[in-house]
């Protein structure tokens, strides 16, 4: 039989196409909401789209996908984010 069409593999857009990339993390950013001024610089720079903006305007880290690069921690101008080793408490 002659094929009159070509079959192409097509991928569908999906969150977590590489799984829960939060598992890669060795350090964890933690937001201190007493210090956060809602400037959203952390949201702005995150290469992993792992910071969501809550209805009240505060950023919230999605630990399912945050790889722990530390950019949010490093760029936060009011030092509202700490960066702690996974498994340890915020000191």
């Amino acid at each position: 039989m002659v094929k009159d069409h070509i079959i192409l593999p097509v991928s569908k857009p999906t969150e977590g196409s590489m799984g829960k990339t939060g598992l890669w993390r060795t350090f964890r950013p933690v937001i201190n909401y007493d210090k956060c001024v809602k400037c959203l610089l952390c949201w702005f720079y995150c290469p992993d789209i792992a910071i969501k903006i809550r209805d009240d305007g505060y950023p919230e880290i999605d630990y399912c996908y945050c790889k722990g690069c530390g950019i949010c921690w490093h760029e936060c101008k009011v030092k509202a984010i700490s960066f702690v080793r996974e498994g340890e408490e915020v000191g």
Partner: protein
Amino acid sequence: MVSIRDMPKEELLLPGHAACPGCGAMIALRYALKALGKRTIMCVPACCTSVIQGLYPHTSIAVPVLNIAFAAAASTASGISAGLKARNVEDVTVLAWAGDGGTYDIGIQALSGAAERGDDIIYACYDNNAYGNTGIQRSGATPYGAWTTTTPTGKKEHRKPLELIMLEHNIPYVATACSAFPDDLYMKFKKARKIKGPRFILILSPCPIAWRFPSWSTVEIGKLAVKSGAWVLWEYHNGKLEFTGWSKLIAEGKLKKIPVIEYLKHQGRFKPILKDEKAINEIERRINDYWKFMKALKEALK
């Protein structure tokens, strides 16, 4: 300039992609897609991005993407653009998205052809200064003095000024951008989207892996590149050249350029030349020459 608050919140790059932590190229892609919107078709040749997308049957990029051969980013984009034209589709942007290896070296022939033919495409090159995906080999974009696996004692040649080669093609829009300034990058893609014909945007994308710096420094390193004048933000449109962002401030004397060593010293890749005064002077000389040329060009195009 657009403020963070006014930035569109819709994300067309989805979380859970495969980039290394702190990848500058993904900050760039996130904002390029915010600017271009859903009605975009991408062509991505072999490069980090083609891996970052994720594994079949899933992808992290929420617009249609064609994965194509290394040399074919621009020619595929040209073909898609011709196809859309034949179908009278006018509101779709065709974006070729390629690395520096796939642009400066391997894709330049197809890119030059598309520019010469006046094809209606945006070609964006995210420049991480090396063949990142295959483990950091030198490319035509690797700067003088930088270590790569194929330049173990530091590269002996300067990078190729690809943005100027594209400008010489006489196309309607050419710009440089940097991952550390997503707002500037966003505005440039937004502007490019409205223009017809070949458009070229070259994005300096700091890469923690190839440049040897900690993953949290990506934005800082990009800022230092611009502050030291090693990377210059500009835009060419309607036959006129404008500096943008911090480069504009530097050009107008409102921001003082910092010594390039401040940019180099945070990156392990410059270890081979960090204590070599002659090499550092050579890098400064090249930066000053580039600035002199760009300022003269801006004047000439006035």
